């Protein structure tokens, strides 16, 4: 058999899962959709001593509107459900568009929204989406819980603030501001493949059509999703003219990213991609915000 042996836990409630994780400590690993973990186990790059499988915990699968206009997504909600959910489509049209770019149907049918965030692959879409949308993350452990802002959640490639006994239980997306628009741009060598560079932008306009807020999140070009500071500095308070957008894009590409080189493209090439993609994404997002 390909994966190394492991002890298998199949809790049917969150409490039971938290008890399993508490008892297992560093030996325990959560199995959500498994679309990244199981390939890694097939190669024996990952050899967890024990898996805590969340697939039988019905209370972790949901998309729930909250009274304040937020949307709460249970950690085990499959990507394909998020992609097609009418409330998500209506309130956050950017989400289905981004999710559609994750691998292929067969993967999205199993992959989970929360699992992708906890896995923290620097080339994955959902962690960047969480940062762009200012998601708040409910982290639970036996006897306690805490809320973590998505901006503070990612520490490095495949590294997050989650402790071994903790579980990412819920993702809460605050409502999109009025007069906001979003865009997603990526370049990958083949459809469904990892992006060589990608950006999600969410911008808001004030009554006089000046930029009120600009969130530009880059990924696949660094160790974690990168929330641009330059975007706010250059854009907020200005009318988003092509010249201002070009200036923001140029500055982001020059100062805020330092992409590495690999088989598929040099760092320099990917820096150029960032410049072009940010410009396109900001232009489209401002257009949609009007």
């Amino acid at each position, binding site marked *: 058999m390909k994966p190394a042996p492991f002890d298998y836990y199949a809790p049917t409630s969150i409490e039971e899962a938290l008890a399993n994780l508490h008892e297992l400590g560093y030996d325990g690993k959560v199995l959500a959709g498994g*679309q990244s973990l199981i390939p890694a186990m097939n190669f024996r790059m990952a050899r967890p001593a024990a898996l805590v499988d969340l697939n039988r915990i019905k209370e972790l699968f949901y998309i729930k509107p909250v009274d304040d206009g937020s949307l709460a997504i249970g950690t085990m909600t499959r990507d394909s459900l998020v992609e097609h959910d009418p409330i998500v489509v209506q309130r956050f049209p950017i989400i289905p568009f981004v999710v559609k770019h994750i691998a292929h149907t067969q993967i999205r049918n199993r992959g989970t929204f929360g699992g992708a965030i906890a896995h923290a692959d620097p080339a994955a879409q959902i962690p960047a989406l969480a940062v762009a949308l200012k998601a708040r993350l409910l982290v639970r452990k036996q006897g306690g819980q805490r809320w973590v802002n998505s901006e503070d959640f990612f520490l490095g490639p495949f590294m997050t603030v989650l402790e071994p006994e903790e579980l990412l239980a819920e993702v809460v997306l605050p409502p999109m501001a009025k007069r906001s628009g979003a865009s997603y741009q990526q370049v990958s060598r083949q459809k469904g493949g990892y992006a060589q560079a990608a950006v999600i932008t969410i911008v808001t306009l004030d009554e006089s059509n000046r930029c009120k807020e600009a969130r530009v999140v880059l990924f696949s070009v660094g160790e974690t999703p990168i929330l641009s500071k330059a975007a706010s500095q250059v854009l907020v308070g200005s009318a988003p003219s092509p010249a201002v957008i070009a200036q923001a894009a140029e500055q982001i590409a020059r100062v805020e990213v330092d992409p590495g080189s690999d088989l598929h493209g040099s760092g320099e090439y990917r820096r150029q991609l960032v410049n072009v993609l940010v410009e396109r994404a900001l232009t489209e997002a401002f257009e949609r915000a009007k």
Partner: protein
Amino acid sequence: MAQKVKINLTVNGKAYQREVEPRLLLSDFIRHDLGLTGTHVGCEHGLCGACTVLVDGEAVRSCILFAVQVDGSEVRTVESLGTPDNLHPLQQAFIEKHALQCGFCTPGFLMTIVEYLGKNPNPSDEEIREAIDGNFCRCTGYVNIVEAVRLAAQKMASH
């Protein structure tokens, strides 16, 4: 002594109860434990799509799922589609349009497409290409496969 877990599941309409090691992949369970070798195993890490089967009606990659995860589920493999004497319209369309040569990728394509046509019985060429973007073919090429899907959609509509 390795841990064994008891699972109950339905495969192609037949109920099975088995005890399996948790690390047994669904693809290996289907092929080795049940002897259903129609499901092919290509890359074994979720890229090529050859191992695609339906779990509770949804196309999934059986090489990156553990058999224990489908406890209580209904699985469909390519063996459920048709018999040599009575092929499924989709299988017939693959023959008529020469949509296979070596046939290794075919079961994965068939299961992906049979699920897709159930949801979208009249897809455009663009949609067909999108639907099969998770399956690799390394000899026939995709043109004939797209034509076969189009023909299958017609056959199934008049079926």
